[in-house]
């Protein structure tokens, strides 16, 4: 269970997250959608206590993240593809994280095997492709066998096999009763993976609903998303201009 209440974060004059409230419940995959720059990553960082909110608060399993006794055993997070030192092996990276939360060493090889990195575990992670880095990030998130998973754009850089693997992994984690909160800008992918959706634009909540409900009145989930976010898009290409110039 993740609860965000009136979360607000400003960077100078810019309001990145604006009085955002929503719940993410266990047992289903909840997609987190929004245009570029809408505040998805900032929201996730606020939930994880990495950034300090200017107002409001976020709770995970009823606690603020900083109060957790064994954070990695309660919350697993993937925030960016390359949150590891390029000179360190995948195994050492995970071993260090395991040690911080008294997670048995055997679990490191278990998650490496789970994400398909067992054969590359001893190599310096700086040599990894984007997809391999993403897999290492997923391994780190799964390390503590947590009840809550927070993943920022996990399919970035993955090949089609990897995309399907993530999709099935997230669904099975949710089916085990875990809370799975996953951001993406790939709406078609979310349509296949998520049951519930939290949609934001310009840091504000636009919808907290199910995939079925949102797409009900439109031809596709994508159409529904564009209608919902039409007023909240910051960075937009202009096809009309390109065509005339």
């Amino acid at each position, binding site marked *: 269970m993740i609860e965000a209440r009136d979360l607000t974060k400003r960077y100078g004059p810019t309001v990145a997250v604006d009085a955002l409230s929503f719940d993410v419940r266990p047992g289903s995959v909840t997609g987190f959608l929004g245009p570029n720059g809408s505040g998805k990553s900032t929201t996730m960082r606020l939930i994880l206590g990495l950034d300090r909110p200017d107002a409001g608060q976020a709770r995970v399993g009823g606690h603020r993240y900083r109060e957790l*006794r064994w954070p990695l055993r309660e919350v697993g997070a993937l925030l960016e593809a390359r949150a590891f030192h390029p000179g360190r092996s995948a195994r050492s990276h995970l071993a260090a994280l395991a040690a911080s939360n008294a997670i048995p060493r055997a679990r490191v090889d278990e998650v490496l095997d789970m994400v398909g990195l067992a054969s590359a575990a001893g190599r310096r992670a700086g040599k990894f492709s984007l997809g391999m880095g993403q897999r290492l990030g997923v391994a780190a998130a799964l390390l503590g066998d947590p009840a809550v998973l927070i993943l920022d754009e996990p399919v970035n850089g993955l090949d089609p096999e990897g995309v399907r693997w993530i999709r099935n992994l997230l669904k099975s984690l949710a089916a085990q009763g875990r809370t799975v909160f996953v951001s993406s800008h790939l709406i078609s992918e979310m349509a296949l993976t998520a049951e519930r959706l939290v949609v934001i634009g310009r840091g504000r909540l636009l919808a907290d609903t199910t995939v079925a409900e949102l797409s009900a009145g439109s031809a596709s989930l994508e159409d529904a998303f564009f209608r919902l976010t039409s007023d909240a898009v910051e960075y937009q290409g202009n096809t009309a201009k390109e065509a005339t110039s």
Partner: protein
Amino acid sequence: MTAITETRAPRVPGGRYGLAQAARMEWIKLRSLRSTWWTLAVTAAGTIGIGVAVGLGTRSGSGDLTNNALAGVVPGLLLTGALGVLTMTGEYTSGTIRATLAAIPRRPLVLAAKAAVFGAVTLIVGEAASFIAFFADAATLRHGIAAPTLGQPGVLRAVVVTGAGFCVIGLLGLGLGAIIRHSAAAVGVLVAGVYVIAGVIGIVAHGAAAYMPLLIVENSLSTTKPVTCGTDSASCPHFLSAWAGLGVLGLYAVIALAVGGWLLARRDA
């Protein structure tokens, strides 16, 4: 939904993470980078190598031979300090800091663990380098020059305190890394603070010169007797004793770490 939720038994153990877990993480992180061992090896080799070179080049037994034997600490300390900086800033460059702080959300604990682990490693390496440099220098002195021994007044103290200097400058680097967060800028501040500014102030303001890190290392830590500037005593600063010098350096490191820890806890990661 509820039926599935209930099948998950809570497996989170009692207790809470603490300094022991944080230190174990930092030890794995430090030892799993090849650059750590390269830097420490070059530091020790440089310190010892300069000790040997000084020993071979010594022509008279009149000066403070122990101080001469330990001349290599000055460049060696720079490397240890830079390694301290990189131990912190490397996490920001790579993004590892987010993973670290998600694992240990009590941030001052992260810096305390880093300081404990890095301090212990640099203390061991520093003492080893200092003692080996001392003996290597003594072994290479030419016939007719009496080599200093650890039993002579102030000699053991000079060697031990010099070894500890590696640890203290390393921790100063770590603290600066936590404050500044960018590798190049933090190394620059370290070098400027320890070497350049120390040199300038040493020339301009004699009263403050005794408190400059580099002059403490050269004139307080590694000496067996108080340094004098020969005939022109008026222009010579009154240098700190070895222990006072180590204490002042330690104070600099503690201030840097305290400010770094405070900023680490306050700033967004």
